[in-house]
């Protein structure tokens, strides 16, 4: 009887609802929701608040679905890394099938709701972003090439485009530039992180750039990507797509980013403990994106 009870607990205990929430990576979702909201608010039309809320909800649910499917596919990999070993699947708190059903269901629900409540262009871009993250990044690139972050970064670049499309029903130059900005921001952001958690990635056999090409090459690449990223950030101003509030903020923030990237470039450390510039760049890169998009919305609504 005791044995039977133990077996039930180990194999048939339903996952806690909090583990389903954890599967959606809520912390990553904040940035996705924020950039999506900014894309929506930067559009030259006003949207009904309920429809705007629905659009952001769909973007959040779509991102959550992609995160759940990513963890479903990568459960074996997550178990090998300290940073991810406590997630619901590698920790054994949820069975893989539940994660798969949850991810597929949530993704389909978010796309259908977006299509029915807003428009089908936004729904199509949302579907493309989920498939891009799951198939192109997770399944195809992540374990195969050190360029995983470069091409895979496209997945996280969709939210402003979706927000804009939800509000206007079309795609314009500004949201494409915002897509490009996040696309070019992703490599320096993730490579800064992967420099100081390199041993984790190496242990799991993920071919991140610092693991495959070493810290020196990674630092060069961080600096190289910072330049076009800064240009993409500033470009809406000279093109007349935004005003001086955004323009000045983009220039100032990009210069700080460049300064921190140069400090990373000059650092020779190979131990995580001595990688303060990398940690600072990683932390600032998150603030950078929040501030840039915040400035865009401020610019749109104040002028």
């Amino acid at each position, binding site marked *: 009887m005791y044995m039977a009870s133990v077996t*039930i*607990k180990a194999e048939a205990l*339903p996952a*806690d609802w909090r583990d389903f929430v954890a599967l959606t990576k809520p912390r990553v979702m904040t940035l996705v929701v924020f950039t999506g909201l900014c894309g929506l608010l930067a559009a030259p039309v006003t949207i009904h608040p309920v429809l705007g809320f629905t659009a952001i*909800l769909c973007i959040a649910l779509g991102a959550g679905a992609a995160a759940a499917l990513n963890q479903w596919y990568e459960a074996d990999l997550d178990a090998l890394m300290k940073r991810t070993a406590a997630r619901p699947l590698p920790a054994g708190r949820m069975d893989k099938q539940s994660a798969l059903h949850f991810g597929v269901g949530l993704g389909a629900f978010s796309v259908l709701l977006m299509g029915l409540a807003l428009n089908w262009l936004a729904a199509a871009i949302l579907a493309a972003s989920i498939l891009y993250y799951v198939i192109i990044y997770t399944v195809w690139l992540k374990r195969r090439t050190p360029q995983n972050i470069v091409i895979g970064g496209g997945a996280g670049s969709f939210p402003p485009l979706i927000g804009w499309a939800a509000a206007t029903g079309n795609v314009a130059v500004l949201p494409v530039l915002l897509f490009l900005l996040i696309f070019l921001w992703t490599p320096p952001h993730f490579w800064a992180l992967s420099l100081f958690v390199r041993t984790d990635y190496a242990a799991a056999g993920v071919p991140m750039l610092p693991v495959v090409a070493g810290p020196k090459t990674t630092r060069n690449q961080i600096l190289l990507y910072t330049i076009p990223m800064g240009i993409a950030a500033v470009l809406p101003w000279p093109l007349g797509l935004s005003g001086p509030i955004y323009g000045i903020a983009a220039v100032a923030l990009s210069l700080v980013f460049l300064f921190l990237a140069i400090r990373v470039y000059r650092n020779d450390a190979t131990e995580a403990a001595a990688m303060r510039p990398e940690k600072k760049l990683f932390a600032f890169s998150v603030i950078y994106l929040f501030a840039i998009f915040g400035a865009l919305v401020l610019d749109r609504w104040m002028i």
Partner: protein
Amino acid sequence: MTPNDPIDPEIRKRQKSRALVMALALGAFVLLLYGISIAKMALA
């Protein structure tokens, strides 16, 4: 497990909390659909 076996209290607790969260989510969805319908009618 046969139909006469008592269900493990831990399983029952999990099922109850999941059912509660699902009920709240469905309730919120109904409210959202109502809101979307009103918004669409207002725009039309």
